[in-house]
């Protein structure tokens, strides 16, 4: 590890001591095995082979002590250009739902939404470096969506995630009134409501919902202006014309084309 990172290292012990003690006790660690300090941190001197087991057990106790995260393993791709967050979010959602638009790249979505040619060969040209709405991009990649509450609360996020449906959100930065789109892919409520946000600017963030609802995202003043409830697109079922006619005939409706 490089110098700056090593020089500034701060030891951190995130497993609560009570769980380490409980796990150690279960593993038969005796008071003689204990020492007061280890690298400035409280700890136990453990016999070879037993240390890892104690830590694993303590970790399991820590995990069991907290409410689970309810998350959809969603992979947001980074936006390819400065203003293309709408395209990155749309492409990510289309891929997740495997819609008929899932094969589109961001540059194609941008071109089709903006009515611009050549965005895949030169995405930096002016007609391709424009902003757009997420609604237009979602329509372009065939992701059904509807408007949710603004700002959303956990009561709205929870059933969406339970149904394996992702939520889009738009924040509007206070300093320039431009928007930014991202995706809510999970939640957790212990000790307070929080959400997982997948941001095409290159972040997967665990954020307190209260902070977001109060108008701060990435420690920057903003307003949560839109919530997009996305859903699985309806599947088209193909029935051959002759089969359809036969069913209709057998039901007494008579044959013939529709």
């Amino acid at each position, binding site marked *: 590890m490089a110098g700056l990172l*090593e020089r500034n290292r701060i030891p951190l012990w995130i497993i609560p001591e009570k769980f380490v003690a409980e796990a150690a006790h279960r593993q038969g660690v005796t008071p003689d095995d204990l020492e007061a300090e280890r690298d400035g941190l409280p700890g136990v001197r453990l016999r070879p082979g037993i240390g890892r087991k104690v830590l694993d057990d303590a970790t399991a106790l*820590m995990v069991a002590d907290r409410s689970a995260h309810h998350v959809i393993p969603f992979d947001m791709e980074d936006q390819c250009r400065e203003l293309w967050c709408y395209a990155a979010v749309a492409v990510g959602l289309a891929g997740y739902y495997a819609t008929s638009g899932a094969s589109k790249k961001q540059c194609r979505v941008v071109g089709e939404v903006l009515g611009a040619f050549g965005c895949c060969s030169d995405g930096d040209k002016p007609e391709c470096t424009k902003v757009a709405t997420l609604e237009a991009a979602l329509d372009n990649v065939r992701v059904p969506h509807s408007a949710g509450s603004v700002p959303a609360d956990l009561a709205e996020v929870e059933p969406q995630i339970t149904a394996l449906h992702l939520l889009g959100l738009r924040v509007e930065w206070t300093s*320039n009134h431009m928007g930014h789109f991202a995706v809510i892919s999970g939640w957790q409520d212990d*000790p307070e409501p929080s959400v997982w946000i997948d941001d095409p600017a290159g972040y997967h963030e665990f954020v307190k919902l209260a902070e977001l609802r109060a108008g701060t995202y990435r420690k920057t003043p903003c307003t949560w202006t839109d919530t997009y409830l996305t859903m699985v697109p309806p599947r088209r079922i193909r029935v051959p014309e002759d089969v359809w006619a036969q069913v209709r005939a057998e039901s007494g409706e008579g044959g013939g084309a529709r």
Partner: protein
Amino acid sequence: MTTSTGTVDPSVVEAVRERLSVVVGRPELRHRKLGRADPATIALTLPHRVYALGVNELAEGLPLRRARPVAEAFLVLDGEAVVAAAEVSPEGHVTISEGSAIDALAGTVEQVDADPDVGTEGAEVRVLRVPEVNLLALWLHRPGGDGDLIVPVARPPAPVQAGRRYDPDELSAVLVDVGHRHLRPPESGN
């Protein structure tokens, strides 16, 4: 505790520790680095402040030294590897982040550290961030030394170049155009 980046408030470290204990090693987060991380080997490093400016201030050419601190922050280590960042707002809200932006920031720290032309000893490490224009940069504040140095991280707004070393005044001048470009009407997203 004291580092080359200044004194770290133990209550800030405790807030981060508490928040990390909620996410690290969770089996339902195995698709994330923090979910796969070993709680026994988690540590923090590079305590720093995050500074910000508004887009309107970029457009006005406000010097970067006027940027405001918006969070106390750390990089999060799993063993030797940087896996995330943790930020604490003045109100005490802790945000844990991972992803390509954090990976790129860690890479820039290592790049600067390995550069024999850059003196990091005694420098105060900062991060400059303007989310409205997708700008994230490592900022070495070196009062009385060689002068401040700012290195933008991957995919900054054009014409800012990732990995290039900027003098703050030089970067400020470049960001004037970026600011103007991002002062646009609402009803859209970037």
